[in-house]
């Protein structure tokens, strides 16, 4: 059972991560007339959003800049969903 502060931290990271991803998708689709789908905690970065390997690298860099953490590229391979990413960021923050 998570505490209120843990839930609050989780939600904050989710919100900031969502902004990063929306920003990444917009950068990657100038002039394309498709609407970005709603991003939820279950959203799969590859199967739902189609992030390719270069974009995953961009995401890794953006996470590093936004949260002041050092994600490992090898570990990022295991990050498939937004939930995976939030948990990984929390793990990195707890170690820093």
């Amino acid at each position, binding site marked *: 059972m998570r505490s209120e502060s843990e839930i609050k931290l989780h939600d904050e990271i989710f919100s900031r991560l969502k902004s990063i991803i929306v920003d990444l998708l917009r950068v990657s*689709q*100038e*002039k*394309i*007339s498709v609407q970005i789908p709603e991003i939820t905690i279950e959203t799969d970065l590859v199967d*739902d959003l189609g992030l390719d390997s270069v974009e995953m690298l*961009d995401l890794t860099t953006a996470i590093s800049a936004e949260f002041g953490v050092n994600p490992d590229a090898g570990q990022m391979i295991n990050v498939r969903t937004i939930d995976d990413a939030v948990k990984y960021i929390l793990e990195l923050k707890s170690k820093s």
Partner: protein
Amino acid sequence: MLNSKAKVLITGIGVISPAGVGIDNLLQVLQEGKSTASDLTDAEFSNFPLKYACQIGNFNPLDYMKFKLARHMTRCSQLGVVASLLAVQDSKLNLSTIPSDRIQIYEGTSMGGLNNILADYETFLEEGYQKMNPSTAAQAFIGSTTGEIAIVLGLRSRSITICSGSASANDAIGLGFEQVSSGTIDIAIVGGSEAPIIPAVIGSFCRAGVVSTRQDGPQMTPRAFTGDRDGFIVGEGAGFLILESEKHAKARHAKIYAELAGFGNGCDAYQMLVPHPEGEGVFLAADRAMRSARISEEDVDYINAHGTGTRLNDKYETIALKKVFKKNIFNIRVSSTKPITGHLLGACGAIEAIICVLSIQHGFIPPIINYLQTDPECDLNFVKNKSEDKKISVAMSFTYGFGGKNSVLILRKV
């Protein structure tokens, strides 16, 4: 192409035009002689003398593919992929049963994903290369759509993009025709796609003086072959056809729209922007097409002319068609459908081939709309303003591209 071996049949059609998605929408505007033009409302176009375009209203690529695919495609590719999917669905072909060396893909486009390249260049100027889209090179190069089509259809076959300016789609269709006709393959997925309603393209056309500057309403322009014509307006869209050998089509009891009977092309070897004033290249392209179809001038019922509405094209096209058909030209009904659909540039040949198929299938000729003033230099046997019922056995579609490229298709009732 003088020695055709296999009859080439059209067994599937997919189209996204300014009239909307699908054949029925296109058929309606052709039969009703209704313009698909609308105002260019984006602020980027506000200073251009061209005020109108033929834009696709309701098209959401997410209705046909997942977000993860659509977001990596330019608009040109989205249109082309969806039109090819619709054509395959229409044909009821089971692609998994076709060996990959018996099927090929040819697509014509002249601008491809130019808009995405330009947008990424702006990003580079404003924010540096680190903020550029890592996918632009793969998404937006001129050949990207045929790659996307092969991926979506799961075809490890030849898949090639043809760029001949406004003759691109006819050339793409023609190359597919030659491959099926020669027995090299059984199926060709052929067509064109174009999404050129962008400032760079329209601005350039404005500067070249080839677009209409009329401001009395989108429905009033363009005007092809008329005394008051002043240029074309740009359209967007995609059209694909399934070409199939007669043997293959009949073996699976395929629906048959028409026969693609002939193809010919040839260059003017004259100038990049101005057609040959005596129609030399057009004559050769048409002659080659008619020899490949084994027809003569008397056999043709309908000509879908290139008819862009520029002063020079329409004048020189009239001269060229008279050279091709001699006195018989006055027995052949002629129209340009660009006043209805706009000029779809590299994709115009695909849309117009489909229009010829619909004309044959439904026994009518779509009109040149906005025909209000004659021009003695353009005195062909035009269908003006209202469509006309007519049984059509043979239709010819003419398209010409910058660089003096001329490409002609012949379609025949089966």
